[in-house]
Protein backbone atom coordinates (compact mmCIF):
# COMPACT_ATOMS: atom_id res chain seq x y z
CA UNK A 1 0.00 0.00 0.00
CA UNK A 2 1.38 3.36 -0.94
CA UNK A 3 0.34 6.82 0.08
CA UNK A 4 0.89 9.74 -2.28
CA UNK A 5 -0.03 13.37 -2.26
CA UNK A 6 -0.77 15.46 -5.34
CA UNK A 7 -0.66 19.18 -4.68
CA UNK A 8 -2.89 20.60 -7.41
CA UNK A 9 -3.42 23.99 -5.77
CA UNK A 10 -3.17 26.83 -8.26
CA UNK A 11 -3.94 24.52 -11.18
CA UNK A 12 -7.05 24.96 -13.32
CA UNK A 13 -9.15 22.21 -14.88
CA UNK A 14 -8.40 19.73 -16.26
CA UNK A 15 -4.89 19.76 -14.69
CA UNK A 16 -5.92 18.53 -11.20
CA UNK A 17 -7.74 15.57 -12.79
CA UNK A 18 -4.77 14.75 -15.03
CA UNK A 19 -2.33 14.92 -12.09
CA UNK A 20 -4.61 12.66 -10.02
CA UNK A 21 -4.93 10.23 -12.94
CA UNK A 22 -1.14 9.96 -13.24
CA UNK A 23 -0.73 9.40 -9.50
CA UNK A 24 -3.40 6.68 -9.46
CA UNK A 25 -1.93 4.96 -12.51
CA UNK A 26 1.43 4.79 -10.76
CA UNK A 27 0.12 2.66 -7.89
CA UNK A 28 -1.55 -0.77 -7.77
CA UNK A 29 -3.46 0.05 -4.64
CA UNK A 30 -3.27 2.60 -1.88
CA UNK A 31 -4.23 6.14 -1.19
CA UNK A 32 -3.73 9.30 -3.22
CA UNK A 33 -4.60 12.60 -1.60
CA UNK A 34 -5.13 15.43 -4.09
CA UNK A 35 -5.11 18.93 -2.64
CA UNK A 36 -7.06 21.52 -4.62
CA UNK A 37 -8.12 25.08 -3.95
CA UNK A 38 -11.37 25.48 -5.85
CA UNK A 39 -14.79 23.82 -5.94
CA UNK A 40 -14.63 22.94 -9.64
CA UNK A 41 -11.40 20.99 -9.16
CA UNK A 42 -12.72 19.32 -6.00
CA UNK A 43 -15.89 18.08 -7.68
CA UNK A 44 -14.05 16.99 -10.83
CA UNK A 45 -11.39 15.04 -8.91
CA UNK A 46 -14.11 13.26 -6.90
CA UNK A 47 -15.96 12.46 -10.14
CA UNK A 48 -12.79 11.07 -11.65
CA UNK A 49 -12.14 8.88 -8.59
CA UNK A 50 -15.67 7.50 -8.49
CA UNK A 51 -15.72 6.89 -12.27
CA UNK A 52 -12.57 4.79 -11.82
CA UNK A 53 -14.01 2.66 -9.04
CA UNK A 54 -12.05 4.33 -6.25
CA UNK A 55 -13.33 5.56 -2.91
CA UNK A 56 -13.21 9.30 -2.30
CA UNK A 57 -13.72 11.52 0.72
CA UNK A 58 -13.17 15.24 1.04
CA UNK A 59 -11.91 17.27 3.95
CA UNK A 60 -11.78 21.05 3.90
CA UNK A 61 -8.95 22.84 5.69
CA UNK A 62 -8.38 26.59 5.44
CA UNK A 63 -10.19 26.87 2.13
CA UNK A 64 -8.27 23.98 0.57
CA UNK A 65 -9.85 20.64 -0.24
CA UNK A 66 -8.05 17.39 0.56
CA UNK A 67 -9.56 14.70 -1.66
CA UNK A 68 -8.52 11.33 -0.27
CA UNK A 69 -8.79 8.68 -2.97
CA UNK A 70 -8.53 5.00 -2.15
CA UNK A 71 -7.60 2.59 -4.92
CA UNK A 72 -7.78 -1.19 -4.64
CA UNK A 73 -8.72 -3.13 -1.49
CA UNK A 74 -11.15 -1.30 0.78
CA UNK A 75 -9.46 0.27 3.79
CA UNK A 76 -10.69 0.39 7.37
CA UNK A 77 -11.90 3.91 6.69
CA UNK A 78 -13.95 2.87 3.67
CA UNK A 79 -15.68 0.12 5.62
CA UNK A 80 -16.55 2.71 8.23
CA UNK A 81 -17.85 5.02 5.54
CA UNK A 82 -19.96 2.22 4.15
CA UNK A 83 -21.72 2.13 7.51
CA UNK A 84 -23.46 5.42 6.72
CA UNK A 85 -27.07 4.95 5.74
CA UNK A 86 -29.35 7.02 3.58
CA UNK A 87 -31.08 9.22 6.14
CA UNK A 88 -30.69 12.96 5.67
CA UNK A 89 -31.31 15.36 8.57
CA UNK A 90 -32.36 18.97 8.03
CA UNK A 91 -31.35 20.84 11.19
CA UNK A 92 -32.98 24.27 11.34
CA UNK A 93 -32.13 25.45 14.85
CA UNK A 94 -29.57 24.98 17.60
CA UNK A 95 -32.08 23.88 20.22
CA UNK A 96 -34.14 20.71 20.00
CA UNK A 97 -37.92 20.83 20.29
CA UNK A 98 -40.31 23.60 21.28
CA UNK A 99 -40.72 25.07 24.75
CA UNK A 100 -37.72 25.95 26.87
CA UNK A 101 -34.61 26.96 24.91
CA UNK A 102 -32.49 26.01 27.91
CA UNK A 103 -33.88 22.49 27.83
CA UNK A 104 -33.62 22.53 24.03
CA UNK A 105 -29.85 23.18 24.23
CA UNK A 106 -29.42 20.24 26.63
CA UNK A 107 -31.44 18.01 24.30
CA UNK A 108 -29.37 19.10 21.28
CA UNK A 109 -26.20 18.05 23.06
CA UNK A 110 -27.76 14.73 24.06
CA UNK A 111 -28.90 14.21 20.47
CA UNK A 112 -25.43 14.63 18.98
CA UNK A 113 -23.84 12.53 21.72
CA UNK A 114 -26.27 9.71 20.93
CA UNK A 115 -26.36 10.01 17.13
CA UNK A 116 -22.96 8.30 16.55
CA UNK A 117 -24.20 5.28 18.53
CA UNK A 118 -27.12 4.63 16.20
CA UNK A 119 -26.49 2.45 13.14
CA UNK A 120 -26.58 3.16 10.30
CA UNK A 121 -25.14 6.63 10.57
CA UNK A 122 -26.93 9.42 8.71
CA UNK A 123 -25.81 10.15 5.16
CA UNK A 124 -25.92 13.93 5.50
CA UNK A 125 -26.65 16.58 8.09
CA UNK A 126 -27.88 19.79 6.49
CA UNK A 127 -27.72 22.88 8.72
CA UNK A 128 -29.93 25.89 7.95
CA UNK A 129 -31.00 29.06 9.78
CA UNK A 130 -30.05 28.87 13.50
CA UNK A 131 -28.78 25.33 12.92
CA UNK A 132 -25.55 26.73 11.46
CA UNK A 133 -24.51 27.81 14.98
CA UNK A 134 -23.84 24.13 15.59
CA UNK A 135 -21.17 23.88 12.88
CA UNK A 136 -19.46 27.17 13.76
CA UNK A 137 -16.74 27.90 16.29
CA UNK A 138 -18.15 27.95 19.80
CA UNK A 139 -20.66 25.19 19.08
CA UNK A 140 -21.26 22.95 22.11
CA UNK A 141 -21.34 19.85 19.86
CA UNK A 142 -18.38 20.58 17.60
CA UNK A 143 -16.36 17.54 18.72
CA UNK A 144 -19.30 15.21 18.11
CA UNK A 145 -19.86 16.65 14.65
CA UNK A 146 -16.16 16.33 13.81
CA UNK A 147 -16.30 12.67 14.86
CA UNK A 148 -19.32 12.11 12.59
CA UNK A 149 -17.52 13.85 9.73
CA UNK A 150 -14.50 11.59 10.16
CA UNK A 151 -16.75 8.57 9.94
CA UNK A 152 -18.04 9.69 6.54
CA UNK A 153 -21.16 11.66 7.43
CA UNK A 154 -21.55 14.65 5.15
CA UNK A 155 -22.01 17.98 6.98
CA UNK A 156 -23.28 20.90 4.95
CA UNK A 157 -24.12 24.38 6.21
CA UNK A 158 -26.25 26.90 4.35
CA UNK A 159 -24.01 29.75 3.11
CA UNK A 160 -26.79 32.37 3.22
CA UNK A 161 -27.47 31.44 6.85
CA UNK A 162 -23.79 31.62 7.83
CA UNK A 163 -23.69 35.06 6.21
CA UNK A 164 -26.79 36.18 8.06
CA UNK A 165 -25.38 35.21 11.45
CA UNK A 166 -21.88 36.53 10.50
CA UNK A 167 -20.44 33.05 10.91
CA UNK A 168 -18.98 32.55 7.43
CA UNK A 169 -15.37 32.81 8.71
CA UNK A 170 -16.18 30.68 11.74
CA UNK A 171 -17.39 27.48 10.08
CA UNK A 172 -15.50 24.79 11.98
CA UNK A 173 -16.70 21.51 10.47
CA UNK A 174 -18.07 20.36 7.10
CA UNK A 175 -18.51 22.64 4.12
CA UNK A 176 -20.71 25.45 2.84
CA UNK A 177 -23.62 24.71 0.56
CA UNK A 178 -26.56 26.39 -1.16
CA UNK A 179 -30.30 25.86 -1.38
CA UNK A 180 -29.97 24.02 -4.66
CA UNK A 181 -27.78 21.34 -3.08
CA UNK A 182 -29.91 21.21 0.06
CA UNK A 183 -33.05 20.62 -2.00
CA UNK A 184 -31.26 18.05 -4.15
CA UNK A 185 -30.06 16.15 -1.05
CA UNK A 186 -33.53 16.24 0.50
CA UNK A 187 -35.34 15.16 -2.64
CA UNK A 188 -32.85 12.35 -3.32
CA UNK A 189 -33.03 10.97 0.21
CA UNK A 190 -35.40 8.05 0.75
CA UNK A 191 -35.86 9.39 4.28
CA UNK A 192 -35.37 12.99 5.43
CA UNK A 193 -35.88 14.13 9.02
CA UNK A 194 -36.36 17.77 9.99
CA UNK A 195 -35.29 18.96 13.44
Amino acid at each position, binding site marked *: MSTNTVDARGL*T*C*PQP*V*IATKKALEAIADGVVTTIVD*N*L*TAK*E*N*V*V*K*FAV*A*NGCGASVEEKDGHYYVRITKGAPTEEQRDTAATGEIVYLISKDTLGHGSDELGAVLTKAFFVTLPEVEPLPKSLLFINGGVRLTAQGSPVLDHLKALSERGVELLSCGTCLDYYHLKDKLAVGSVT*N*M*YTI*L*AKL*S*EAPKAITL
Partner: protein
Amino acid sequence: MGLDTADDAGVFQLDAETALIQTVDFFTPLVDDPYLFGQIAAANSLSDVYAMGGKPLTAMNIVAFPMCSLDAAVLGEILKGGQEKISEAGAVLVGGHTIDDAEPKYGLSVTGLVHPGKVWANAGARPGDRLILTKPIGTGVLATAMRAEMFADGVQAAITSMAALNKVAAETAGAFSVHACTDITGFGVLGHLFEMAAASGVRIEVDSRALPLLPEATEAAAMGFVPGGAYSNREYLTRVAFRTDVPDPIRDLCFDPQTSGGLVFSLPEEEAAAALAALKNAGLHACALIGRIVGPGRGEIDVY
Protein backbone atom coordinates in the same frame (compact mmCIF):
# COMPACT_ATOMS: atom_id res chain seq x y z
CA MET B 1 -36.10 44.65 -28.11
CA GLY B 2 -35.49 45.58 -24.49
CA LEU B 3 -32.57 44.52 -22.35
CA ASP B 4 -34.67 42.76 -19.72
CA THR B 5 -35.48 39.59 -21.67
CA ALA B 6 -31.83 38.63 -22.39
CA ASP B 7 -32.25 38.40 -26.16
CA ASP B 8 -29.40 37.25 -28.36
CA ALA B 9 -28.93 40.51 -30.27
CA GLY B 10 -30.15 44.09 -30.55
CA VAL B 11 -33.01 44.80 -32.96
CA PHE B 12 -33.71 48.28 -34.38
CA GLN B 13 -36.69 48.90 -36.64
CA LEU B 14 -35.89 51.01 -39.74
CA ASP B 15 -39.30 50.98 -41.43
CA ALA B 16 -42.43 48.84 -41.65
CA GLU B 17 -40.59 46.15 -43.61
CA THR B 18 -37.08 46.17 -42.19
CA ALA B 19 -35.33 45.93 -38.86
CA LEU B 20 -31.59 45.79 -38.18
CA ILE B 21 -30.11 43.08 -36.00
CA GLN B 22 -26.75 43.89 -34.41
CA THR B 23 -24.55 41.63 -32.35
CA VAL B 24 -20.94 41.27 -31.28
CA ASP B 25 -19.06 38.34 -29.75
CA PHE B 26 -15.41 37.33 -29.48
CA PHE B 27 -13.33 35.01 -27.35
CA THR B 28 -9.96 33.38 -26.77
CA PRO B 29 -8.88 30.27 -28.72
CA LEU B 30 -10.36 27.02 -27.46
CA VAL B 31 -8.67 24.88 -30.13
CA ASP B 32 -5.00 24.98 -31.18
CA ASP B 33 -5.68 25.08 -34.92
CA PRO B 34 -6.05 28.79 -35.86
CA TYR B 35 -8.13 28.07 -38.96
CA LEU B 36 -10.65 26.02 -36.97
CA PHE B 37 -10.66 28.65 -34.23
CA GLY B 38 -11.56 31.28 -36.85
CA GLN B 39 -14.40 29.13 -38.14
CA ILE B 40 -15.78 28.44 -34.67
CA ALA B 41 -15.57 32.07 -33.49
CA ALA B 42 -17.29 33.31 -36.66
CA ALA B 43 -20.02 30.65 -36.53
CA ASN B 44 -20.62 31.57 -32.89
CA SER B 45 -20.92 35.30 -33.69
CA LEU B 46 -23.21 34.76 -36.69
CA SER B 47 -25.47 32.50 -34.62
CA ASP B 48 -27.03 35.41 -32.70
CA VAL B 49 -28.48 36.79 -35.95
CA TYR B 50 -29.99 33.41 -36.81
CA ALA B 51 -31.39 33.11 -33.27
CA MET B 52 -33.36 36.33 -33.87
CA GLY B 53 -34.81 34.99 -37.14
CA GLY B 54 -32.63 37.22 -39.31
CA LYS B 55 -30.18 36.96 -42.19
CA PRO B 56 -26.58 38.16 -41.74
CA LEU B 57 -25.79 41.10 -44.03
CA THR B 58 -22.35 42.43 -43.07
CA ALA B 59 -19.63 41.44 -40.63
CA MET B 60 -16.56 43.13 -39.14
CA ASN B 61 -13.58 41.34 -37.64
CA ILE B 62 -12.61 42.00 -34.03
CA VAL B 63 -9.07 40.81 -33.44
CA ALA B 64 -6.56 40.85 -30.61
CA PHE B 65 -3.19 39.35 -31.54
CA PRO B 66 0.35 39.27 -30.11
CA MET B 67 2.06 40.81 -33.15
CA CYS B 68 5.60 40.32 -31.81
CA SER B 69 5.45 36.80 -30.42
CA LEU B 70 3.22 34.99 -32.93
CA ASP B 71 3.73 34.50 -36.66
CA ALA B 72 1.40 36.68 -38.74
CA ALA B 73 0.52 33.55 -40.72
CA VAL B 74 -1.40 32.34 -37.66
CA LEU B 75 -3.57 35.45 -37.80
CA GLY B 76 -4.03 34.84 -41.51
CA GLU B 77 -5.38 31.36 -40.77
CA ILE B 78 -7.80 32.66 -38.12
CA LEU B 79 -9.16 35.28 -40.54
CA LYS B 80 -9.36 32.74 -43.37
CA GLY B 81 -11.50 30.47 -41.19
CA GLY B 82 -13.72 33.39 -40.25
CA GLN B 83 -14.04 34.59 -43.86
CA GLU B 84 -15.20 31.15 -44.98
CA LYS B 85 -18.04 31.18 -42.45
CA ILE B 86 -19.00 34.76 -43.36
CA SER B 87 -19.20 33.75 -47.04
CA GLU B 88 -21.13 30.58 -46.19
CA ALA B 89 -23.62 32.78 -44.31
CA GLY B 90 -24.06 34.91 -47.45
CA ALA B 91 -22.73 37.97 -45.62
CA VAL B 92 -19.98 40.40 -46.62
CA LEU B 93 -16.90 41.27 -44.60
CA VAL B 94 -16.74 45.08 -44.59
CA GLY B 95 -13.86 45.77 -42.24
CA GLY B 96 -12.56 45.20 -38.77
CA HIS B 97 -10.16 46.29 -36.09
CA THR B 98 -7.03 44.66 -34.66
CA ILE B 99 -5.21 45.47 -31.43
CA ASP B 100 -1.92 44.15 -30.08
CA ASP B 101 -2.61 41.93 -27.09
CA ALA B 102 -0.78 39.14 -25.29
CA GLU B 103 -3.59 36.62 -25.77
CA PRO B 104 -5.23 36.16 -29.19
CA LYS B 105 -8.93 36.86 -29.41
CA TYR B 106 -11.25 36.77 -32.38
CA GLY B 107 -14.88 37.29 -33.19
CA LEU B 108 -17.27 39.31 -35.32
CA SER B 109 -19.60 42.21 -35.07
CA VAL B 110 -22.49 41.15 -37.32
CA THR B 111 -25.33 43.18 -38.77
CA GLY B 112 -28.36 41.36 -40.09
CA LEU B 113 -31.84 42.09 -41.41
CA VAL B 114 -35.21 40.80 -40.29
CA HIS B 115 -38.83 41.67 -40.93
CA PRO B 116 -40.05 43.49 -37.80
CA GLY B 117 -43.05 41.18 -37.61
CA LYS B 118 -40.92 38.05 -37.82
CA VAL B 119 -38.39 38.57 -35.05
CA TRP B 120 -37.75 35.43 -32.98
CA ALA B 121 -37.49 36.75 -29.46
CA ASN B 122 -36.87 34.88 -26.21
CA ALA B 123 -40.32 35.94 -25.02
CA GLY B 124 -43.10 34.27 -26.98
CA ALA B 125 -43.05 30.62 -25.94
CA ARG B 126 -46.60 29.50 -25.16
CA PRO B 127 -48.05 26.72 -23.01
CA GLY B 128 -48.43 23.62 -25.18
CA ASP B 129 -45.38 24.44 -27.35
CA ARG B 130 -42.74 21.80 -28.01
CA LEU B 131 -39.02 22.56 -27.90
CA ILE B 132 -36.57 21.50 -30.62
CA LEU B 133 -32.78 21.64 -30.14
CA THR B 134 -30.71 21.57 -33.34
CA LYS B 135 -27.17 20.66 -32.19
CA PRO B 136 -25.87 18.10 -29.68
CA ILE B 137 -24.52 19.39 -26.33
CA GLY B 138 -21.23 18.76 -24.57
CA THR B 139 -18.75 21.16 -26.22
CA GLY B 140 -17.60 22.57 -22.85
CA VAL B 141 -16.92 19.15 -21.35
CA LEU B 142 -15.14 17.93 -24.48
CA ALA B 143 -13.05 21.12 -24.77
CA THR B 144 -11.89 20.38 -21.20
CA ALA B 145 -11.17 16.75 -22.12
CA MET B 146 -9.25 17.98 -25.16
CA ARG B 147 -6.79 19.81 -22.90
CA ALA B 148 -6.26 16.48 -21.14
CA GLU B 149 -5.70 14.88 -24.57
CA MET B 150 -8.50 12.41 -24.01
CA PHE B 151 -11.71 11.41 -25.83
CA ALA B 152 -10.35 12.30 -29.26
CA ASP B 153 -13.46 11.12 -31.15
CA GLY B 154 -15.76 13.24 -29.01
CA VAL B 155 -13.43 16.23 -29.31
CA GLN B 156 -13.42 15.93 -33.11
CA ALA B 157 -17.23 15.77 -33.20
CA ALA B 158 -17.41 18.81 -30.91
CA ILE B 159 -15.12 20.83 -33.20
CA THR B 160 -17.20 19.93 -36.26
CA SER B 161 -20.38 20.88 -34.42
CA MET B 162 -18.99 24.20 -33.15
CA ALA B 163 -17.81 25.20 -36.63
CA ALA B 164 -21.23 24.52 -38.17
CA LEU B 165 -23.46 27.55 -38.88
CA ASN B 166 -27.03 27.68 -37.58
CA LYS B 167 -28.03 28.91 -41.06
CA VAL B 168 -29.78 25.76 -42.27
CA ALA B 169 -31.59 25.36 -38.93
CA ALA B 170 -32.89 28.94 -39.03
CA GLU B 171 -33.91 28.80 -42.71
CA THR B 172 -35.68 25.48 -42.29
CA ALA B 173 -37.55 26.57 -39.18
CA GLY B 174 -38.61 29.76 -40.97
CA ALA B 175 -41.34 27.74 -42.69
CA PHE B 176 -42.97 26.99 -39.33
CA SER B 177 -44.70 29.06 -36.63
CA VAL B 178 -41.71 29.65 -34.36
CA HIS B 179 -43.00 31.36 -31.20
CA ALA B 180 -39.58 31.86 -29.59
CA CYS B 181 -35.96 31.03 -30.32
CA THR B 182 -32.56 31.31 -28.67
CA ASP B 183 -29.11 29.89 -29.30
CA ILE B 184 -27.37 27.73 -26.73
CA THR B 185 -24.05 29.23 -25.62
CA GLY B 186 -22.31 29.99 -22.32
CA PHE B 187 -25.21 29.45 -19.94
CA GLY B 188 -25.73 25.90 -21.17
CA VAL B 189 -28.95 24.33 -22.40
CA LEU B 190 -30.78 24.91 -19.10
CA GLY B 191 -29.50 28.48 -18.71
CA HIS B 192 -30.79 29.54 -22.10
CA LEU B 193 -34.04 27.63 -21.65
CA PHE B 194 -34.44 29.47 -18.34
CA GLU B 195 -34.00 32.82 -20.13
CA MET B 196 -36.64 31.81 -22.67
CA ALA B 197 -39.02 30.51 -20.00
CA ALA B 198 -38.59 33.55 -17.73
CA ALA B 199 -39.02 36.02 -20.63
CA SER B 200 -42.12 34.13 -21.79
CA GLY B 201 -43.62 33.72 -18.30
CA VAL B 202 -43.82 29.94 -18.62
CA ARG B 203 -42.70 26.70 -17.01
CA ILE B 204 -40.65 24.18 -19.02
CA GLU B 205 -40.29 20.41 -18.85
CA VAL B 206 -37.15 18.82 -20.34
CA ASP B 207 -36.78 15.14 -21.22
CA SER B 208 -33.13 14.49 -20.35
CA ARG B 209 -33.13 11.20 -22.28
CA ALA B 210 -34.08 13.05 -25.46
CA LEU B 211 -31.20 15.55 -25.25
CA PRO B 212 -28.84 15.08 -28.20
CA LEU B 213 -25.33 14.53 -26.79
CA LEU B 214 -21.95 14.68 -28.50
CA PRO B 215 -20.17 11.30 -28.59
CA GLU B 216 -18.18 10.55 -25.40
CA ALA B 217 -19.57 13.68 -23.68
CA THR B 218 -21.25 11.60 -20.97
CA GLU B 219 -18.07 9.59 -20.31
CA ALA B 220 -15.95 12.74 -20.20
CA ALA B 221 -18.36 14.41 -17.73
CA ALA B 222 -18.34 11.29 -15.54
CA MET B 223 -14.53 11.35 -15.57
CA GLY B 224 -14.50 14.85 -14.11
CA PHE B 225 -13.83 16.95 -17.21
CA VAL B 226 -16.52 19.42 -16.26
CA PRO B 227 -15.60 23.09 -16.87
CA GLY B 228 -15.93 25.65 -14.07
CA GLY B 229 -18.66 27.41 -16.05
CA ALA B 230 -20.93 24.39 -15.65
CA TYR B 231 -20.68 24.68 -11.86
CA SER B 232 -21.35 28.43 -12.03
CA ASN B 233 -24.40 27.81 -14.21
CA ARG B 234 -25.67 25.21 -11.73
CA GLU B 235 -25.16 27.67 -8.88
CA TYR B 236 -27.05 30.41 -10.71
CA LEU B 237 -30.00 28.35 -11.94
CA THR B 238 -32.07 27.95 -8.79
CA ARG B 239 -35.35 27.19 -10.56
CA VAL B 240 -34.19 23.90 -12.03
CA ALA B 241 -35.44 20.67 -10.46
CA PHE B 242 -34.14 17.27 -11.56
CA ARG B 243 -36.09 14.08 -11.07
CA THR B 244 -33.92 11.91 -8.84
CA ASP B 245 -33.14 9.31 -11.53
CA VAL B 246 -31.38 11.76 -13.88
CA PRO B 247 -27.73 10.62 -13.77
CA ASP B 248 -25.06 13.08 -12.57
CA PRO B 249 -23.11 13.29 -15.87
CA ILE B 250 -26.33 14.21 -17.69
CA ARG B 251 -27.03 16.92 -15.12
CA ASP B 252 -23.53 18.28 -15.66
CA LEU B 253 -24.13 18.33 -19.43
CA CYS B 254 -27.39 20.23 -18.91
CA PHE B 255 -25.31 23.03 -17.31
CA ASP B 256 -22.30 22.64 -19.64
CA PRO B 257 -21.43 25.99 -21.28
CA GLN B 258 -21.63 25.62 -25.06
CA THR B 259 -19.60 27.40 -27.72
CA SER B 260 -21.48 27.95 -30.97
CA GLY B 261 -24.30 25.70 -29.76
CA GLY B 262 -27.53 24.94 -31.56
CA LEU B 263 -30.81 26.83 -31.76
CA VAL B 264 -33.82 26.01 -29.62
CA PHE B 265 -37.21 26.61 -31.21
CA SER B 266 -40.47 26.82 -29.29
CA LEU B 267 -43.28 25.99 -31.67
CA PRO B 268 -46.85 24.64 -31.61
CA GLU B 269 -47.22 20.95 -30.80
CA GLU B 270 -49.14 20.27 -34.05
CA GLU B 271 -46.18 21.52 -36.13
CA ALA B 272 -43.44 19.90 -34.02
CA ALA B 273 -43.22 16.56 -35.83
CA ALA B 274 -43.15 18.18 -39.27
CA ALA B 275 -40.55 20.74 -38.20
CA LEU B 276 -38.34 18.01 -36.73
CA ALA B 277 -38.62 15.95 -39.93
CA ALA B 278 -37.79 18.99 -42.07
CA LEU B 279 -34.71 19.82 -39.97
CA LYS B 280 -33.48 16.22 -40.16
CA ASN B 281 -34.11 16.19 -43.90
CA ALA B 282 -32.00 19.31 -44.19
CA GLY B 283 -29.09 17.33 -42.74
CA LEU B 284 -29.38 18.31 -39.06
CA HIS B 285 -29.40 14.73 -37.81
CA ALA B 286 -28.84 15.56 -34.13
CA CYS B 287 -32.08 17.59 -33.97
CA ALA B 288 -34.44 16.42 -31.25
CA LEU B 289 -37.62 17.28 -29.41
CA ILE B 290 -36.25 17.95 -25.95
CA GLY B 291 -39.21 19.23 -24.00
CA ARG B 292 -42.38 21.25 -23.80
CA ILE B 293 -43.90 24.37 -22.31
CA VAL B 294 -46.18 22.98 -19.60
CA GLY B 295 -47.95 26.15 -18.47
CA PRO B 296 -47.56 29.64 -17.11
CA GLY B 297 -44.67 30.17 -14.71
CA ARG B 298 -41.60 32.20 -13.84
CA GLY B 299 -38.94 30.23 -15.65
CA GLU B 300 -39.12 26.99 -13.68
CA ILE B 301 -37.55 23.98 -15.41
CA ASP B 302 -38.33 20.38 -14.49
CA VAL B 303 -35.88 17.87 -15.91
CA TYR B 304 -36.95 14.24 -15.96
